[in-house]
């Protein structure tokens, strides 16, 4: 297969469903809405990455890549995109339409820290924005809140306990 002539379409889908479609000519020539975009990745002497697009350079960082999910920083601002082909995008849409709606929310620790206090109790009704517990990390107290309306199913966290990142703290069942 020819490496430099690809002529395919790739779509970057953002967190809120925003779509950016690009025609790929080769590894450095793309186009968006008929606009030609010539890119270049420049690694500077001290290891910083610059992404050049039509001659304009942006400081960037690839934070993570899991399968086709990318988190990138441009000017220090974080963006999450899932890269899809037109076909995989369609597949995703069909799958999403057939997926049962999630029946609740698992509240996990966004960072390692110490549980200061627990507000949520099993069986308690919660609304989006209601505080569930307070997690202290780096001198700061962070209140974790519910994002769905429902009933607290389990409270796995214990006051005073130290928890790791992504540890399950509270389970909410949708009302």
């Amino acid at each position, binding site marked *: 297969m020819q490496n430099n002539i690809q002529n395919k379409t790739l779509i970057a889908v953002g967190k809120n469903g925003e779509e950016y479609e690009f025609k790929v000519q080769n590894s450095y020539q793309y186009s968006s809405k008929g606009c030609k975009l010539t890119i270049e990745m420049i690694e500077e002497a001290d290891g910083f990455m610059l992404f050049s697009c039509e001659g304009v350079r942006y400081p960037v960082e690839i934070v993570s890549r899991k399968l086709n999910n990318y988190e990138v920083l441009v000017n*220090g601002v974080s963006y999450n995109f899932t890269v899809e082909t037109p*076909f995989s995008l369609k597949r995703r849409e069909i799958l999403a339409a057939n997926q049962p709606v999630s029946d609740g929310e698992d509240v996990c620790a966004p960072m390692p820290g110490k549980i200061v206090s627990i507000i949520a109790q099993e069986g308690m009704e919660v609304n989006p924005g209601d505080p569930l517990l307070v997690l202290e990390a780096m001198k700061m107290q962070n209140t974790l809140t519910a994002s769905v309306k429902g009933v607290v199913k389990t409270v796995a966290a214990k006051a005073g306990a130290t928890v790791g990142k992504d540890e399950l703290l509270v389970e909410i069942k949708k009302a």
Partner: protein
Amino acid sequence: MIKSILIANRGEIAIRIARTARRMGVKTYAIRTKKEPNAVYLSSVDEILDFPETDGSVPEFLDIPNLVKLAVDNHVQSMHPGYGYLSENAEFAAACRDAGVVFIGPSPEVIRAMGDKIVAKDIAHKCGVPMLGGTLGGIPDAESAVAEANRLGYPVIIKAASGGGGRGMRICRKESEVKQMYELATSEARTAFNDPTVFIEKYLENPKHIEFQVVADKYGNVVHLGERECSIQRKHQKLMEEAPSPALDDELRERMATAAVNLAKAANYESLGTVEFLLDDNRNFYFMEMNTRIQVEHPVTEMITGLNLVELQLLIASGEKLPVEQKDVRLEGWAIECRINAEDVQSGFVPSIGMIRNLRLPSDNRIRIDSGVRIGTEITPFFDSMIAKLIVHGKDRADAIELALHSVEHFHVMGVKTTIPFCKAVLHNEVFRSGNFNTGFIEHDLKSLIYKEEHEELIAALLAVSTYNHDNDFSGDVDADMAEQPMDPWVLQKRIRHL
């Protein structure tokens, strides 16, 4: 003059203290802890002392007996607490004094008086400093709380006498809330500060936060070094400070400064201190509290006065007279400090934990960077998330804002997310630029917490797409090639049916 100094702190403030102490010919000692044995601050001192083995129940920089013992055993003459930790702890200051170690700060008695909000208010009241109404003493029970709140008019705020840093405070907007809030505030104060005493004040919605730097020697000389504007806050955490404040004119500055100096005199203050005021829309100011330590944001005052505040602290602690009189103090130009923290602004300012893989700092002779990190430093949950303080000095406010913007644009950190996009958003904001902002700024005036350049999202999308394209390079990689082959629609239909 003091000959040696133990710095009971870490990070950028330990480095900043050591820098001045060494220049003055004072031998400097730092403390190495197990949590960060290779920290940058350790290379800024003459001698490193290892913190002794303990059961770990008390964090190193809060361990009064061991800190004092380190100073005594190593014949270190004085102790500098920095900010945070034990810097406003009267017991620590007393323990130092009892052990014959000079505590760099005011006496334990003054720290205790200012640490108790009710005593501090009483002193302020006696020397005529304006206050936000309310009783001078503690509130004995819920009924008195309701009566006092009704007398003041709503909203009111219930505060813990021993509180600080935004903790132990409850706002009541109507009578029915007072009883419950009173109970909550007392129980919170008891657990957090071991002192259930609370008091009530009138609550100001979105005031300005203005603080005055004062400095006093042992001979009754008190000088003020102008004000700092600290209204850019989130949950009582300051994020950006400047000096002077755009809200003050000479007349108001003079009145507030006089109040601050009078308060310091009435408290028999000696050393460096900060008098915090709230300023309302009608330019009325009210005493809030006095901080008896060096503050994080002290460099903005140093920039506009040309004075070195740590040097003043050391001179005063050595029993010397203040080297400046009020008439010598000139406020020149405008300084802004941006706190560059390892925080993910887009996820609600949560700390961004990880390793600083790369660092590129701006430089200019009007820029100062106080930092305690280097490439390879881990941002851990043990300590605060500060990466650096970026301080700029412009000829006026507009010049300082442009310089600050230019500097944050050239401040690059790899490995963790930072508050730089937030600093840009503030510096670009029209309300901020007008100077007419208050502590409600982030909530009301800042439409986006981060600054995005035009087309930035498109660029990010293109970066993701091109990285994907690069990752799935088709030359020779059969699996990746296969993955790109369209799936037979019939197979797809079948798979969906079996979900």
